[in-house]
């Protein structure tokens, strides 16, 4: 990732900067960083404007905001964190993907369980809830 930099420090006397630049390719440049910044800036402002818009339904707003957040997430991972721009065997990408799986199980699983509990017990009194949980949830 920062090899050109480290290379320059380690071997500045032996290797000309110009030559090492040809050997090593870096994912980050001023241009790609600025593109990422502008893209995220526009996406943030758009999301804010969507919320302020009158006449859009709550569900529609939430879906648009979620999509914009997802696009900005990908943009930041690519332009700022240089994900997917490393060479094989791409450890970082695989760690990232396994993290996504764990996060998905954690968040979706929690919401699912809690929603299910809510759905089953909403109409009950606290005493009935206690009895229900004893009977069905093994508590």
């Amino acid at each position, binding site marked *: 990732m920062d090899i050109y930099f480290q290379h320059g420090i380690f071997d500045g006397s032996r290797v000309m900067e110009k030559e090492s630049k040809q050997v090593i390719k870096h994912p980050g440049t001023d241009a790609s960083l600025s593109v990422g910044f502008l893209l995220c800036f526009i996406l943030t402002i758009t999301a*804010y404007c969507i919320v302020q818009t009158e006449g859009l339904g709550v569900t529609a707003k939430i879906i648009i905001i979620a999509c914009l957040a997802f696009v900005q997430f990908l943009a930041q991972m690519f332009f700022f*964190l240089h994900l997917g721009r490393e060479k094989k065997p791409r450890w970082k990408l695989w760690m990232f993907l396994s993290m996504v799986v*764990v996060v998905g199980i954690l968040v979706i699983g929690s919401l699912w369980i809690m929603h299910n509990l809510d759905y089953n017990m909403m109409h009950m009194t606290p005493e009935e809830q206690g009895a229900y949980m004893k009977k069905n949830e093994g508590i």
Partner: protein
Amino acid sequence: MTRVSERAVEATMLEERAERNSIGFWLYLMTDCILFASLFAVYAILHVNTFGGPGPKELFHPGGVLAETLLLLASSYACGLAVLRARAGERAKAIFWLVVCFALGASFLTLEIGEFAELIAEGNSFTRSGFLSAFFTLVATHGMHITIGLIWIAVMVAQLMLKGLTPHTARRLTLFSLFWHFLDVVWIFIFSTVYLMGVA
């Protein structure tokens, strides 16, 4: 010809070393993501439980939060520029961008603490309801990371001034940039799900 290929081999070795150096830190960031995901899950479950108190719509000011978001994004950009300048061997410019990054990050934190202070002064602290407990836990955990990041920047600026650009300071700067960009990624989700969806 042989000299060029030797250099290529050497460059590959150095590149592999630099990659290895950052992989451990990357693994830490991934586990930190899981920490934030569990706090997001807690917030998603509890945000409706206002215990008769005010909800997101009454409490959040989207304008102020938009300012926070843009400050943090600009700070992330400044951090990226600092790394690029350091890579080019321009120490003074790298320090300049780190100071900009610090100033923007500190403004973000000041706005956030102001928001918390206002909520608490109005009697809506984390003890008010399940929603507010989850909100404070999630947002303050992010704020705590930002605080640690600011200390990290201060230490790095001092090191760059005293020691200059060495392999060690260079490595720290690279790891810091990962940390700082990562915090901005987490903030997008807080901005979108907690604030924007809260007032939608």
